[in-house]
């Protein structure tokens, strides 16, 4: 369940980014995409293969979270280029975590596998299924990758950590650098007599009051999995806390859910709720987006980069205009409060690439895989070959003069993501099936426009560990704690419980394992950072 929640959250933000890159890629091709996914791919094997090798190829079993075709173009490309023979386990992303557990549980351990979340990695490692991957080995074999991780994606190292040792290579997730957009229906604000987009909590209160008079709710909450992390996720940071993220406070690691700042935010939210500024349906999170589009709600905390694109007939703004031609939506700075401003973000670390235990005795193979990852994810050529494919066949520059700065256009029939994934290529923007996400420094160059939009009003608040439940005892306590947090927060906001119950909650939180986790969080933080 936890995994699904993560993924949902990750996906939506990622989805926004992916859509943008595809958009950047295809807008010039006017033909309908061909839809057959079979046949042509096999014949379209890579032709410009690397030097022919006389050595016997190394055989690698590789568990891939993508249902590509057998012997796909992308797989052959890697095989020929690096003189390996891949025996892939092809698993659809939706089924990956479950099928991985069963396959490994049956004692079948692939050489290379993507592990989606740190909790699974810890469990696999504790069962002795994974090879230890000394950080030094990574530094030796993939120096550029390691350097980028250390520089931009430091929390990734928490994902691959078990019992003080490193068990894999964290992957990149460039989309996690950005938070979702805050959006206002400025047409409604205007109708209510507010001319300036509210920038602070106090200005929000004034605006909500005015909006209420014209029968519009100011605030709601309903991003996927509302309950666990997305609950009013742009309001709490204004008070200086991001529940339930781990964060540094006076040199100590603490959890945002139990800080006095959260109580202050809850006081404000309960007050707003009582005054009728908050849509009571925020509890189920249903129709959040629909209500914003329909003009029943003025503020939206889950905006995407393309929402204001009027050339797109079903962007948020276009849909709103179809309902009411007067509609106006604007991106806004995140609300400013006594504690600053910000919004939940996942950070730039993604998943983990791990190795089967057997590779401890086969350092050559591990080295080979590292070589492949380094060359693919860290180089321009790797990106072109495995995310985009063959120039002229799978893609081309949008503007030959500008090269990558102008973006890529995907050529039909390969402008269809299904088709692309089927032949073992990436989506054209950010990842490929085998080594997953490319480093941001590679992909950003191709998406300059979108990155510019993403950086506007960007104030991501990232958990100290990236994902809050990577601690050793998380499995034991975390889900209960999150449940307690949701119940309490929502009860306080809706007035079912008084705000003073927050103090009872803090006590319960610590008794239910919160104190233990805080201890572990501090230990883990010190341990990793003293290196």
């Amino acid at each position, binding site marked *: 369940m936890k995994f699904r929640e993560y993924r949902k959250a990750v996906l939506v933000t990622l989805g926004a980014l992916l859509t943008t890159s595809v958009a950047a890629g295809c807008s010039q091709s006017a033909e309908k995409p061909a839809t057959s996914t079979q046949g042509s791919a096999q014949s379209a094997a890579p032709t410009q293969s690397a030097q022919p090798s006389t050595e016997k190829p190394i055989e690698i079993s590789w568990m891939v979270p993508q249902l590509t075709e057998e012997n796909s173009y992308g797989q052959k490309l890697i095989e020929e280029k690096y003189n390996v023979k891949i025996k892939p386990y092809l698993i659809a992303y939706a089924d990956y975590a479950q099928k991985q557990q069963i396959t490994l549980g049956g004692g079948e351990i692939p050489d290379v596998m993507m592990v989606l979340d740190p909790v699974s990695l810890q469990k696999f490692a504790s069962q002795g299924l994974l090879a230890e991957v000394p950080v030094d080995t990574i530094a030796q074999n993939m120096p550029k990758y390691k350097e980028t991780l250390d520089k931009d994606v430091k929390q990734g190292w928490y994902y691959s950590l078990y019992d003080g040792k490193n068990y894999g290579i964290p992957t990149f997730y460039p989309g996690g650098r950005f938070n979702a957009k805050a959006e206002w229906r400025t047409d409604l604000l205007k109708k209510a007599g507010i001319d300036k987009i509210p920038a602070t909590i106090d200005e929000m209160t004034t605006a909500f009051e005015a909006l209420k008079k014209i029968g519009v709710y100011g605030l709601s909450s309903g991003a996927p999995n509302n309950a666990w992390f997305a609950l009013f996720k742009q309001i709490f940071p204004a008070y200086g806390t991001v529940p339930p993220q781990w964060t540094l406070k006076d040199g100590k690691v603490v959890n945002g859910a139990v800080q006095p700042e959260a109580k202050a935010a809850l006081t404000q939210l309960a007050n707003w709720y009582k005054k009728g500024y908050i849509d009571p349906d925020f509890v*189920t999170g249903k129709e959040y987006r629909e209500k914003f589009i329909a003009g029943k709600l003025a503020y939206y905390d889950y905006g995407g980069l393309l929402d204001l694109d009027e050339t797109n007939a079903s962007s948020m703004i276009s849909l709103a205009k179809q309902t009411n031609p007067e509609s106006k939506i604007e991106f806004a700075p995140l609300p400013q409060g006594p504690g600053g401003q910000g919004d939940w973000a996942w950070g730039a670390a993604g998943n983990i690439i791990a190795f089967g235990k057997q590779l401890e005795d086969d350092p050559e193979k591990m080295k080979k895989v590292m070589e492949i990852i380094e060359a693919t994810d860290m180089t321009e050529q790797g990106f072109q070959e495995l995310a985009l494919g063959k120039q002229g066949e799978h893609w081309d520059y949008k503007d030959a003069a500008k090269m990558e700065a102008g973006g890529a256009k995907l050529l039909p029939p390969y402008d269809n993501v299904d088709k692309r994934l089927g032949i073992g290529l990436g989506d054209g923007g950010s990842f490929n099936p085998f080594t997953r996400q490319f480093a941001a420094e590679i992909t950003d160059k191709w998406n300059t426009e979108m990155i510019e939009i993403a950086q506007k009003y960007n104030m991501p608040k990232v958990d100290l560990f990236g994902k809050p439940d990577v601690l050793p005892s998380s499995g034991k306590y975390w889900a209960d704690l999150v*449940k307690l947090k949701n119940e309490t927060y929502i009860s306080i906001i809706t007035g*079912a419980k008084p705000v003073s119950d927050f103090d009872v909650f803090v006590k319960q939180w610590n008794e239910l394992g919160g104190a233990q986790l805080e201890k572990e969080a501090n230990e883990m933080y010190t341990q990793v950072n003293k290196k």
Partner: protein
Amino acid sequence: MSQLLKSYKSHRALILMFLPGFLLFILFRYVPIYGILIAFKNYRILEGVWSSPWAGLENFHRLVSGPGFLKALRNTGIIAVLKYVFVFPAPIVLAILLNEVRKSWFKRTIQTVTYLPHFFSWVILASVLFTFLSTDGALNQVVKMLGFESINWVSDPNKFYGLVVLTDIWATVGWSSIIYFAALSGIDPTLYEAGIVDGASRWQQIRHITIPSLMPTIITMLLLSIGNFLNVGFDQIYNLTTAPTMEVADILDTYVLRRLLSMDYELGTAAGLFSSIVGLILVISANRLVKLYDKDQGLW
């Protein structure tokens, strides 16, 4: 012994007919049953079930010692009882009511339409329910038209069990009634003809012909389902729960889910075994009760 041999001999054709299915049944249902041992083990994947070290009752201790176990057990018990009292009879009532409809096309259409929800996941069912029941949803529009304040249907702990029971009936009544339609089709029509000749009213026909004819099927379905007493419908509850109702909606399945680390086979197996044993006790008792009442009924 020789009697048994004789019995084998006289039934050899039947035994021959019986064996293929039975062996398949044993193969897939009983050969893997050693997996239950995982509940008592500290399961090491690479060592396999048999060689993994024993853990005694530690996994069960983990199961029952988490915060809220008793509450989850209580909630599960309440929902299970409510479902037996209200949801179990619903398809029987539907079958009887439809049996009273004369127009065959109407009967068939209603049958087909009522079984539709079975084909949609609870994710979808909960989603349409939440839309229908939201504060300005269709139902509350009616409520407001009648001059009342709009009512909080989905996130009020006091209404949650009602919500669970009603939506469960709504989602399953058509599908579950199919077996009773089949049973009704086994009733000899001459019984009704004789009843009419004797001047039996419709109600008397239902009471003295329809219900007794359905009884064996009802008892069988009751006994078969009581073994799953503690499985009160995870998908439904999980999808209908909102933060304010968690207190009353936390059932064993959701409780276990919260502490199921990835690959924690031990806890999952222990929880399953717990439910199974409760189920077994209930089935055995219920079967005995039924046999007290009528020797020929009962599963075995």
